[in-house]
């Protein structure tokens, strides 16, 4: 990855409308997001020779998207996956461009995450027992939702590190505060106070509704190309400094070792590939399907001192005037949820200084980190700069 540093860039980002009920199909939303990203980059659909998508059998294919953009690309790829897929597909796109197989790649995620298939409400139990590794050891016990799976990890981690419900609340409050500056955030106009947070009953301890991401209908798209081609684009390129696409840890859903998570293996290579340190990060997009996941990742990436992540967020460091403004559009907890891609869109806009003059711009930010978390079993991240 050392050789790749700063040689590839994100040149286009775009999204569809965001709602509880889109009244349309993932294909329609993907077309909206793709056209927005193309327009942002100043490119035409025929300039894209690779299309990639991640999904959970809840979307349209890359082939369908390209077809209805009226083009015939030479490469389409659809993978099954949620969190950390964005980073991995950007890594794949870089590899394919580096091998001169492709020039410019569009990556998208489109889902009716609210009106269609909804992750947080659980799945069909028979399907889960067969589909999940170790499924027969969790499903008969009533554990079928990511809030329950990640919660098991969270309770132990909180016990070992002294993280409290208030600390989880500070993550939520920080992101909800960002959302109040983002008119497109789903929870814009719905600020959160600590009192209200602590009064909210748990859905599944240690999480209440505020600790959980907002499930919505939405599509996002990102365009990646080489630094040379980026110069011909309309947008200000955001360069990829470093990438650690995907690290793993055994046992996807049945965790015997609650101390280790895949994110713990990402940071060292990531910072080395980018040639920077955690303290150089000026803005962050931290995968936030649940509030606790942010805390565990701050620790994993060395963005806050181990054992002090609770104090780090309680001191306001994720807020606009903090040490590391994070998920500045509101994150998945309060802006929207596309398994991480909406957080990538936001950090690209921050690094372009697209909000310059507005309150929501992280002043003079030049380097940022973007993390992905599929679960304790799979994680990846990248470092971006302007």
């Amino acid at each position, binding site marked *: 990855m050392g050789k790749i540093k700063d040689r590839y860039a994100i040149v286009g980002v775009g999204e569809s409308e965001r709602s509880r009920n889109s009244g349309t199909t993932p294909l329609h939303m993907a077309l909206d997001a793709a056209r927005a990203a193309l327009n942002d980059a100043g490119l035409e659909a025929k300039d894209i020779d690779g299309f990639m998508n991640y999904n959970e059998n809840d979307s349209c294919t890359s082939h369908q998207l390209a077809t209805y953009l009226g083009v015939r690309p030479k490469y389409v790829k659809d993978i099954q996956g949620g969190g950390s897929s964005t980073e991995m597909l950007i890594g794949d796109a870089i590899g394919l461009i580096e091998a001169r197989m492709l020039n410019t790649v569009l990556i998208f995620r489109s889902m009716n995450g609210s009106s269609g298939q909804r992750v947080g409400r659980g799945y069909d*139990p028979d399907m889960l027992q067969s589909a999940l590794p170790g499924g027969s050891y969790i*499903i008969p016990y009533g554990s079928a939702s990511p809030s*329950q799976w990640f919660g098991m990890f969270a309770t*132990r981690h909180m016990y070992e590190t002294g993280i409290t419900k208030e600390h989880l609340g500070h993550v939520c409050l920080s992101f909800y505060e960002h959302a109040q500056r983002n008119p497109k955030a789903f929870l814009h106009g719905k600020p959160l106070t600590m009192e209200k947070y602590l009064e909210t009953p748990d859905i599944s301890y240690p999480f209440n509704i505020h600790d959980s991401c907002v499930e919505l209908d939405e599509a996002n798209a990102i365009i990646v190309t080489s630094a040379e081609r980026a110069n011909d684009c309309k947008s200000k390129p955001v360069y990829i400094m470093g990438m650690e696409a995907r690290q793993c840890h055994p046992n996807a859903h049945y965790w015997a070792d609650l101390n280790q998570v895949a994110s713990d293996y990402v940071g060292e290579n990531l910072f080395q590939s980018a040639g920077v340190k955690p303290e150089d990060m000026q803005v962050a997009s931290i995968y936030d399907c649940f509030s606790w996941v942010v805390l565990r990742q701050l620790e994993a990436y060395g963005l806050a001192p181990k054992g002090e992540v609770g104090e780090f967020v309680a001191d306001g460091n994720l807020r606009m005037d903090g040490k590391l403004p994070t998920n500045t559009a509101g994150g998945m907890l309060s802006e929207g949820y596309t398994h991480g891609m909406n957080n990538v869109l936001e950090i690209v806009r921050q690094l372009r200084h697209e909000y310059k003059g507005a309150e929501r711009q992280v002043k003079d930010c030049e380097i940022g980190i973007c993390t992905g978390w599929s679960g304790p079993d799979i994680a990846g991240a990248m470092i971006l700069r302007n």
Partner: protein
Amino acid sequence: MNGQKPIPLKTQDNQHYWDMADQHELALQKCNDCGKYAHPPGPSCVHCGSTNLTWESLGNNIEATIYSYIISYRPFLPGFQDDLPLIIAQAELKQIPEIKLMCNLLRCNPENVQIGMPVKMIWDDITEDRALPQWVPQEV
């Protein structure tokens, strides 16, 4: 989706565990090559990849301590609507601390559950011929 709780599905890899559970005993998969236990069981050892696996019976007197837990106030699967709040807990086996087994914690008020709490395994007869391992507090 008939409103009944899901019954553990026996597969090629987990059959022995559930067969033994039906007889109210705990059996764990162990690797003959690296000597480590694996749970959940699989087609080969998750520690070294060996297929030289065996099953070790641990009997029916299983003690453990709560390692982590969650408390669900909403059913995420059919059949659990009358069991709320539901405690799901990982417990560390006294005999083999590296193994943490996930079950429900029964006969325990959610306000009383805490990490480190001693529990023991019971087997809940969920059908005529099937049984589900569960945790209960040791003092019950």
